[in-house]
């Protein structure tokens, strides 16, 4: 189906189902229950899941396939966001021109940075990209304020021209009149599920991005990219020029980052300079490795994992903990709350750090490997383990 193999079609369908049903899947707990704290099915966070999913999918095309570890991809995310907000400021709140321009701007920016950085490989390449991104961030924060509005972040003012804005157009981001923030709520008893326009807009673009990434993975081009990672030396003695391959991958992943940046702005028309900081570049690296670099679905999982931690764990404060453990005897409750509070709320970074360590120590292939292990264990229990199968590990599952 769709020109991809059966396995890939299954993966795509699973991802599509997850993405489209996310508002329900991510809200498993009744809205008023104590566990509602763990619900992630509200539009803003779901949008972040899929947007950072796009970012990580794109990054994986570069890092997962070619092995070039860029530490500067946040620069393209930021450039995409700025481009989109400028479109809002100059044209109208319609998201289409904004998203298109954000892709184009980020791609052009990545041509420039990629062309220079790819003259080196290994860590030298990483540091070159890092240097470019940090320069972009520092300048955006200070000297380029007329273009970026510095620390505050670029936003749309009522005094902005918006040349293409029609009379009755919404004053929030929209798709031909369909407001991004519009949503419908489905209530089933104590459960409540939000279906927001913005989320589905992002989710559909994520699915398209994911589909394109599958096609790239399975294409001759993708094969060449994996060859670049595996043995660049052999590649050139096989008559192939690795530089344009790597550069194209760099540009594609830059464009993905631009799309993600544009979508961030389309969901929330404010672009802050922190988006370009090295920590943001590092975040996408972590997402990809955590999920499983070079796998199709890993980066999406990694992105969801990190964003979930950031948004859910950081919001659990001592009050919430007390309400959870209220049923326990006093001393025990205090003790449990004390221990737990070190890992959530202000301590959520500790949880994140520990998770990084645990995943990488015990699951070298990232979360995807965790899934595979569970799958294999289940198969083995059913006695269906095919011998030799694990030996013939498919390189880019």
């Amino acid at each position: 189906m769709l020109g991809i193999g059966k396995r890939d079609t299954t993966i795509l369908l699973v991802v599509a189902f997850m993405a489209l049903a996310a508002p329900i899947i991510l809200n498993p707990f009744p809205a008023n229950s104590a566990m509602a704290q763990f619900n992630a099915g509200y539009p803003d966070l779901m949008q972040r899941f899929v947007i950072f999913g796009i970012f990580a999918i794109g990054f994986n095309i570069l890092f997962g396939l070619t092995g070039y570890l860029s530490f500067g991809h946040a620069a393209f995310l930021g450039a995409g966001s700025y481009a989109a907000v400028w479109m809002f400021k100059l044209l109208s709140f319609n998201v289409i021109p904004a998203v298109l321009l954000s892709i184009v701007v980020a791609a052009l920016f990545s041509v420039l940075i990629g062309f220079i950085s790819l003259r080196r490989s290994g860590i030298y390449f990483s540091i070159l990209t890092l240097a470019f991104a940090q320069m972009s961030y520092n300048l955006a924060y200070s000297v380029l304020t007329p273009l970026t509005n510095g620390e505050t972040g670029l936003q749309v003012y009522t005094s902005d021209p918006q040349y293409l804005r029609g009379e009755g157009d919404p004053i929030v981001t929209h798709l031909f009149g369909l407001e991004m923030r519009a949503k419908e709520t489905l209530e089933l008893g104590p459960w409540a599920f939000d279906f927001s326009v913005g989320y589905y807009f992002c989710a559909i673009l994520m699915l398209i991005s994911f589909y394109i990434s599958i096609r790239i993975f399975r294409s001759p081009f993708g094969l060449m990219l994996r060859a670049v990672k595996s043995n660049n030396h052999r590649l050139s003695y096989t008559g192939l020029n690795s530089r344009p391959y790597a550069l194209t991958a760099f540009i594609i992943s830059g464009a993905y980052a631009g799309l993600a940046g544009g979508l961030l702005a389309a969901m929330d028309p404010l672009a802050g300079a922190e988006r370009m900081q090295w920590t943001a570049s590092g975040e996408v690296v972590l997402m990809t490795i955590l999920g499983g670099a070079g796998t199709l679905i890993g980066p999406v999982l990694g992105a969801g994992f990190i964003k979930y931690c950031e948004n859910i764990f950081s919001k659990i404060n001592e009050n919430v903990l007390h309400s959870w453990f209220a049923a326990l005897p006093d001393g025990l409750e205090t003790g449990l709350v004390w221990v737990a509070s070190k890992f959530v709320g202000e301590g959520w970074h500790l949880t994140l750090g520990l998770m990084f360590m645990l995943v990488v120590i015990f699951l070298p292939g990232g979360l995807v490997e965790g899934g595979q292990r569970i799958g294999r264990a289940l198969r083995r229990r059913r006695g269906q383990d095919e011998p030799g199968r694990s030996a013939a590990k498919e390189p880019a599952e």
Partner: protein
Amino acid sequence: MGILEVKGVNKNFGGLKALQDVNLSVQEGTVHAIIGPNGAGKSTLLNVLVGKLRPDTGSVMFDGKSVLGRKPHEINQMGISRVFQTPEIFTDLSVLENVLIPCFARRDGAFRMHAFESVAHEGTINEEAEQILADVNMADKRNLHAGSLSRGDKRRLEMAMCLVQQPKLLLLDEPTAGMARADTNNTIDLLKEIKETRPITMAIIEHDMHVVFSLAERITVLAQGTPLVEDTPENIKGHPKVREAYLGEAQV
């Protein structure tokens, strides 16, 4: 006029004269061995041929065109393939994928953006790849991880990757170095078979005289960066200068 013509090549590293006035002509369709003691400049010469090093003076013509100043991938596209001392393969990819890559390289050139086609749907290319694997008796290993192969199989795979490109000239850099006797014999058989079944020119750089005399039709002896003699294996064996410079130490 040979398919490969090396004329007056000199290469210095600092004060060291690695190659001095090297002239060499490899005739189309022959197996030409280049031998010499350690430090004779064999590797330097090879690196000049594949574009990794640029000589200080002289010319290297392949098929009527100069290879000098061209990058390795361009030289490969001209029709020169290379087998390395330790097999250079794509260890992270499957055996089949390893041979698919040269197939694409032959069809599409040094760079082509086929990002939306599926590898699985490339009928002819897949057939070619399967064929060559069958030719080197590796068809049953097509789905294995190339990195997990035995050394001998890696060598076979590398050979297959070169052959599938249908090169005009195959350069072999000590193809049996470090191999056990049995593996060496297997490799010799493989090369012999290739020679018989394909119209191919080979240039072998080799230490092992057994290999050289089993395969070569012409031999050039290199010593201290200079070709000493060039002749048929029979004549080389008896050549006094060669014995003196090189074979004296080896058992022939």
